[in-house]
């Protein structure tokens, strides 16, 4: 592991109304890797993502992006740093088209202000066209052409998740947080998703933290895995090692690894 570290979590704890959600979690994400975050239901995976993206504020501990301290920043500030995320339930802007959803992803890269937008002056038009071109690239990349002008509300769930991914990609992030992207997808859609994730990993080279339930997908794709259970980190390491870790198997199957072996 001689790669540069992108994201450092240092002793993160989270307490919500007296409930201990996360307990002293430390982990690292290296540049360009696909890091899977797994664990049973209620292990605190999504909460951890929420802490990174600033939606929750960790009760204790520090989060650093490269050399920048992220703790205490608001979600929009973290987005500006270059950390994008997707949501478990896609959370698309329901009454907007796919195209507009993706364009919202370009928000931080645009800078036309209210008045010039209202008059639609030269600069605004130029900007709109330029960013539209970039968004079209993402549409091509994720094979969303035929949904371009459809309303997000009526899309199949799997497509919604892909649009959510596209929206995050549109931010041109350095770190991408994926919150169960495959949940609710059928086999075909999962295969497409796997393809997209690999292309992002190898063609664009974005660091990804990937919360996932589908062990097969994780086993096939992930570089490294971090395992959470009841708010504690129980394992971290290379994919094969972690998947064979008796503690992990116990957490997942609820039986002693020795009994199995």
């Amino acid at each position, binding site marked *: 592991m001689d790669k540069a570290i992108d994201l450092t979590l240092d002793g993160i704890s989270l307490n919500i109304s007296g409930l201990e959600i996360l307990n002293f979690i430390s982990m690292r994400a290296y540049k360009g890797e696909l890091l899977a975050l797994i664990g049973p239901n209620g292990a605190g995976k999504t909460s951890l993502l929420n802490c990174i993206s600033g939606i929750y504020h960790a009760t204790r501990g520090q989060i650093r992006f490269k050399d920048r301290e992220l703790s205490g920043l608001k979600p*929009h500030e973290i987005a500006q740093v270059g950390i994008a995320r997707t949501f478990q339930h896609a959370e*698309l802007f*329901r009454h907007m088209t796919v195209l507009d959803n993706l364009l919202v992803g370009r928000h931080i890269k645009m800078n036309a202000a*209210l008045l010039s*937008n*209202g008059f639609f002056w030269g600069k*605004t038009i130029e900007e709109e066209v330029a960013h539209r071109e970039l968004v079209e690239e993402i549409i091509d990349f994720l094979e969303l052409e035929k949904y371009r002008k459809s309303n997000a509300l009526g899309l199949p769930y799997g497509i919604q998740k892909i649009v959510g991914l596209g929206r995050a990609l549109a931010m041109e992030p350095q770190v991408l947080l994926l919150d169960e992207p495959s949940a609710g997808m059928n086999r075909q859609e999962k295969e497409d998703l796997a393809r997209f994730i690999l292309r992002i990993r190898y063609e664009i080279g974005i660091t990804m933290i990937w919360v996932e339930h589908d062990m097969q997908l994780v086993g096939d794709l992930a570089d490294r895995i971090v395992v959470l259970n009841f708010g504690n980190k129980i394992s971290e390491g290379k994919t094969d090692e972690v998947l064979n870790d008796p503690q992990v198997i116990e957490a997942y199957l609820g039986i002693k690894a020795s009994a199995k072996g």
Partner: protein
Amino acid sequence: MAFASGYFKTTYKSDLAIVETFSLWICLIILTLGLIFFPFFASAFLMDLANQVFLALIGAIALMLLTGYAGQFSLGHAGLIAAGAFTTAILFKELNAPIWVTLPTSGLTGAILGITFGLPSLRLKGLYLALSTLALHFIVIYIGAEYETQRGFATGVVIDSPSIGPFLIEDPRLWYFSLLIIDILVVIFSINLVRSRTGRAWMAIRDRDVAAEALGIKVASYKLSAFVLTSALTSIAGCLFAYYRGFVSVEAFSLHMTIEYLAMIIIGGLGSILGAIFGTIFVVLLPYIIDALVDILHVPTRLTTYMFAIKYSAFGLIMIIFLVFEPSGLVGIWHRIRDYFILWPFKHKPLGER
């Protein structure tokens, strides 16, 4: 009338056009000509109705931006109109200020009120916010009433017609054209706004504020910008209202007025500028349409008392019907009728229907 039945664009720039097809351009030109020549045929009554629609449209579009696009609920709309009207009245009475002073000052007053009462929106969500705007209503009305009473304008402050340079805007036709131009500007401005970065940010906040923030949108400042813009526009409408009516009185700005504006955007269809236009026309004209029907049907005079009460309730009933059965409003109905004709005899949705 031919609408685009698909997408045949060759450049991204052409996709930004508001008017999509040649025949739509023709329709728009015919509509504009109709609007231009309308005053030369219409009676003074119809002119007054047209002017009322134009005046209300500014406020309705402002509220549509705030509620329909940015998703913030306000009960202070009548208060903001009153703020503009009273700013105008006070400047006119105390300093004899001309319209080119009162109009921007009204806008400024509105913007300041928007900031003051929009500030809670940074910490509050939805309903809490609505109620802080209710406070705005009561406070503005209180200040207006104090002014009227202290200065002895018991039946309202009378304001002279405004003049721009040598033109005295008094004739209904002159008003008509002035308001028409203002309205066209406001409509174009709003359409541009909602299809660009600002509008998308507003809609994102409206639909999913958590996701919007995660995408880097400064939710607080966008909420505030929606408040300020809406308040400024509404106050400007209030200023024009004062000049058009020639007087200002607190009794003219009741909560019922706020509700009428809410009705306009609901009945028209939330989240659509076209909806605001439809809704305004509908709500402003509805009472007169019912009146006209009463005249045509020769309802006996004795029964009219009941008719009037029914008319009042009908307003609420229509709002309910739209909210429950047709949440996309008049604009939704319009889209359906349009699609029906585009695709006849088939029943498919056109490609990429919103």
